[in-house]
């Protein structure tokens, strides 16, 4: 390295060549999937070259070079993480349907139910969706239990004949 700082090309070339071997094994063990170890080797060689003025002549060369190698690895991981963050719109698409589907189902249900007479619609909603018992519904609307059962039965039957095989069984 001292020769390199003094501008002697041949010993410097040899140094970089040896260093590239060390770096290859350094990154080979540490490089996470998705990153190219050879890219990191080259980036580190370039950094060693362009920042060679920051090498203190009293310092062990490998400690200095490997500090740069470690920095380059961390830097690449940071950038890798931001690459992963970048296509977040696609990732959002994975999560949106859950809510959207429920919303669409609710809208469909609303539309289907609107075809029924209002009283029948309320009864079906209370019994089948809100989960009231027949007696509770009967009290709520001031009807007899059997009238409630008949209305619900007819309502579901008409829905069944309209939309076919929804599979809402009575009770």
């Amino acid at each position, binding site marked *: 390295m001292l020769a*390199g*700082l*003094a*501008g*002697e*090309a*041949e010993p*410097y*070339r040899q140094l*970089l*060549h040896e260093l*590239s071997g060390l770096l290859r094994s350094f990154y080979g063990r540490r490089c996470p999937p998705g990153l190219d170890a*050879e890219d990191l*080797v*080259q*980036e580190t*060689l*370039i*950094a060693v*070259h362009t*920042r*060679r*003025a*920051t*090498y*203190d*002549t009293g*310092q062990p060369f490998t*400690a*200095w*070079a*490997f*500090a*740069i190698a*470690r*920095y380059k690895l961390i*830097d690449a991981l940071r950038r890798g993480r931001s690459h992963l963050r970048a296509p977040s719109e696609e990732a959002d698409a994975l999560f949106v349907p859950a809510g959207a589907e429920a919303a669409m189902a609710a809208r469909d249900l609303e539309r289907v139910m609107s075809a029924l007479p209002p009283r029948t619609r309320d009864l079906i909603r209370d019994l089948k969706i809100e989960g009231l018992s027949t007696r509770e519904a009967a009290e709520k609307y001031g009807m007899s239990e059997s009238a409630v059962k008949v209305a619900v039965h007819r309502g579901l039957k008409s829905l069944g004949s309209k939309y076919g095989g929804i599979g809402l069984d009575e009770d």
Partner: protein
Amino acid sequence: MKTDELIQTLSRDLPKVEPGVVARRVTMGLGLGSLASAALMLAWLGPRPDLAQAVLTPMFWIKLGYAAITGIILAVLLTRLAKPAAKPGALAGISLAPFAIVAVIATMGFIKAPPELHRDLLMGHTSMICPWRILAIGLPVLLGAVWATRSLAPTRLRFAGLAAGGCAGGIGAAIYAIACNEASAPFLAIWYTLGIVAVATIGALASPLLRWR
């Protein structure tokens, strides 16, 4: 490009490197930043009107010295942290010494003073603006420090950012000391320190700016 070709290319372009590049670069960044800060201080606040008498009092020099020495110690630390495999060593501890010394001076002055003066000693008349002014005057120095550091090769960015901020805070406070006419050690120990710490915090938070390729 193949790695071997890259090595060939790199070793063909090999101008001689003079020693001392790092120290010169940091000095230049801090120097330019300090000039900008001094210009800001003169245009904004101006030197204290009684400067000619103030330079004869020890308190003026204690204030200036506290801030400047803190700045200089941290500048040396920054010079180390701007290089890979930096070892801050004892310097990180030494950089706390000025704070400790001023804290001792301030405590002694506070205890010796009659209680009715305590409030004045602590709060002066500018305590609420002093840290903010130090922060504002320190920022140009911080810019210079960041510019210099990122052109070198820091590998511990957070630590380097903290040193850059602390150094800028110290130099900024030293420049502000020429404008400030407070004359109590407890005031110095609290509000100057707070200003320096504020710039240091910004330096640490700005450490992503130190990333280099």
